[in-house]
């Protein structure tokens, strides 16, 4: 079949053609950007934190009432013994595997970030990193994968007030930091300097992965984390607890009575005092999931409306051209020829729409990059979008085209 008669016929419906093509272009532009956003968000939500079996973990945040000041040494000692008593009580609970004092957890959106340099008193730090503080049980409790060196032992652990300015002696870093600072490998045994300090901190181990505690918006900070053997003392404490498999709820329920028995003068927030890690994770990614759902709904509505629009307009054309179709059939065109005619016509219009749509899609993406720090959309998304609108057009045109092919030749002889 030649394209020539189709184009000639379309010339008589310029406005309709332009409107359908424009709609397909808009659909393509919006749908491929939306799918790109959905894809990015789902990828982000699914990235592992580096913690093994993280759904068995929960976090306790509590604050002592009338606690001694962390600004004098006697107060610090008192706070530390209070924290040790809590830890002992938690570790003794029947459903608990282990517990460790910790400053923060991945995805908590509250944590501490500092600089790491390679030279003493370095003016500008080489990298920014998350600083996690915990004791010898932190690594096994979190379930981090140690890939070089050793874990902390109880002899390594120092305890300090939270706003202490002295630097820790030892550190465990993540592989991404090791790769960045020591590209030749062998990070274990090397020294680093924290926050432009003059005192060295020695790396004793490397873990595969540990996600950031703060919202890093996808920067390299996401995977730059360091763990220090320090039990921090303050008027509040955080403890990460690993429950026995399947015993998470029981373990979480046992926490309040156990801690109030140790010392009733404390606050454990009703809502956030004892939080499962699953809850922390869900909260951290709620916005991303919400955006993915919203974009999916928009795509669905848009595709349905475009399909319905194509059906509507093609149906109208078929009705309008009953007579011409009859004439063609009388002159020997088969049903399949009529079907193909409308399918090819739709392919042409959708093709023009897709061509404009590609430009619109890239333009929209560029606009989002400039104004909303969005990433550049890979070409594959545009190709998926083009394929989607072409298939959609063919599917939508099929019903009216079938009806057209069923127009009997005798129509040609009837007066309209």
């Amino acid at each position: 079949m030649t394209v020539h008669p189709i184009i000639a016929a379309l010339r008589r419906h310029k406005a309709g053609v332009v409107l359908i093509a424009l709609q397909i272009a808009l659909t393509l532009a919006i749908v491929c950007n939306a799918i790109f956003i959905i894809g990015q968000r789902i990828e982000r939500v699914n990235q592992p934190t580096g913690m093994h079996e993280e759904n068995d973990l929960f976090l306790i945040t509590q604050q002592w009432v009338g606690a001694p000041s962390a600004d004098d040494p006697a107060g610090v000692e008192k706070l530390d013994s209070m924290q040790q008593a809590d830890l002992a009580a938690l570790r003794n609970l029947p459903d608990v595997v282990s517990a460790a004092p910790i400053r923060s957890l991945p995805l908590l959106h509250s944590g501490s970030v500092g600089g790491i340099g390679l030279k003493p008193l370095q003016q500008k730090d080489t990298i920014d990193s998350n600083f996690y503080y915990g004791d010898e049980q932190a690594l096994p409790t979190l379930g981090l994968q140690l890939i070089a060196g050793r874990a902390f032992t109880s002899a390594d652990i120092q305890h300090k007030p939270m706003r202490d300015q002295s630097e820790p002696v030892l550190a465990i870093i993540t592989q991404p930091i090791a790769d960045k600072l020591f590209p030749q490998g062998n990070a274990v045994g090397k020294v680093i300097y924290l926050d432009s300090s003059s005192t060295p901190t020695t790396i004793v181990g490397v873990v595969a992965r540990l996600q950031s505690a703060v919202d890093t918006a996808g920067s390299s900070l996401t995977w730059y984390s360091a763990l220090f053997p320090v039990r921090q003392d303050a008027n509040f404490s955080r403890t990460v607890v690993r429950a026995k498999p399947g015993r998470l709820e029981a373990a979480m329920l046992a926490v309040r009575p156990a801690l109030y028995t140790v010392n009733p003068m404390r606050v454990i927030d009703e809502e956030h005092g004892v939080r499962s890690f699953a809850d922390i994770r869900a909260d951290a990614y709620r916005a991303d999931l919400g955006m993915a759902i919203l974009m999916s709904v928009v795509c669905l509505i848009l595709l349905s409306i475009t399909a319905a629009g194509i059906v509507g307009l093609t149906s109208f054309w078929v009705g309008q051209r009953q007579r011409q179709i009859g004439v063609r059939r009388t002159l020997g065109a088969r049903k399949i020829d009529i079907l193909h005619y409308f399918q090819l016509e739709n392919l042409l219009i959708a093709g023009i729409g897709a061509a404009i749509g590609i430009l619109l899609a890239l333009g929209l993406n560029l606009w989002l990059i400039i104004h909303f720090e969005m990433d550049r959309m890979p070409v594959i998304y545009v190709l998926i979008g083009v394929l989607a609108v072409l298939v959609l057009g063919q599917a939508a045109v099929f019903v009216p085209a079938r009806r057209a092919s069923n127009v009997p030749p005798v129509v040609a002889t009837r007066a309209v």
Partner: protein
Amino acid sequence: MFAYYLELAIRSLRRSPGLTALMVLTIAFGVAASMTTYSVFRAVSGDPIPWKSAKLFVPQIDNWGPNGRGSDGEPPNAMDYNDAITLMRDHRAKLQSAMYQISPSIVPADASKHPINVSGHAVYSEFFPMLDVPFLYGSGWSADDDTQRAAVVVISSKLNQKLFGGSNSVGKTVNIEGKDYRVVGVLNDWNPQPRFFDVVNSGGFSTGVEDVFLPFQRAITVGIPNDGNTNCNAVPTESGFVGLQHSACVWIAYMAELDDTAAATAYKQYLDGYAHDLQQSGHFGWAPNNRLRDLPHWLDNQHVVPSDTKVSLLVALGLLLACLVNTAGLLLAKFLRRSSEIGVRRALGAPRLAIYAQFLTEASIIGLAGGVLGLMLTGVGVVSVGWVLPKDIAALARVDFSLLTLTLLVAVIATTLAGLYPTFRASRVQPAWQLKSN
């Protein structure tokens, strides 16, 4: 005449129910999607204190120098203790307050109950009149209480309900961090969103309520530490909360009321003079690089409106546009199918204007029907975003009269616009042609 067109339109729409339903649905979905995202956008981009926002200013002092600036050359978005105290002491604005976020514990009088945690701010007395904070009982404290570091507290109506059963608690005492504080005021419901006086610590929006306000210097003296963000460009040389006060770390929010441009200019000059003096005395090794933004500009600068909200609105508007193009196409088909009818009307003497009136009436009826259906879908949409969006933002989106009116207006106006071109085409129908071909 309008009644006649109405009748014609309804008859025409009933003749092709499928096509009519399709157009109504298209408009309804397009309008509902954009109105739902708009309700979220409106909620987060609203002015929290519209009668006064142009008079409220947030000063920023560049106490870190070139190395501490972001790539955009901006100074820190909060203040260190020294600068905040100096600005309070100099007292150059009509009203002003330094503030920091606190999270003290409250010990209930009933010994059988566990202590509770509350959140709030340590502020100066001028905080309350400056932000027109509404009181249910009592009032804020006095400037004397500020200097005396008095043990007084202003509590929220929610906390008043919890501790005193909602009765007038002014004069009663509350145990905060083990010390007794006298209640001087109880707030009426006050939960501004965004939390404009301290966006740095709240990130703009908050599901919590500000339960307690303590005098700033009192909180410092008894050592109630800051519960918000602390940003440092260098490690403090001393330990503890006192060490933080002596450091250049920023953790204090600041707001000043300046009633006119002259006052704002004078205040900016004062800030630059202050920084200049510090440069002269060698404390700052750089020229003044301060900022003084009014509240709307400050909220904008701090990106209080999440970019997801803007992108969603944009995408939904794109969807609405696609829906309108779709409707225009369908209307075009529908109107031109009636060329012969138009031909007859024109031949009988109807002017073009009459054709316009008739078909635009038909388009606006579709718009109205789409708008009514869109209203319901918008209602469903606003309820649904509560499930998918972050709680602090979703809680703000709601359906009200102005949103409903806007939904209907957008639907009708947009559909009428979409009907313009098809109507134009319909009005160009040549009567002779149509009559002849029949």
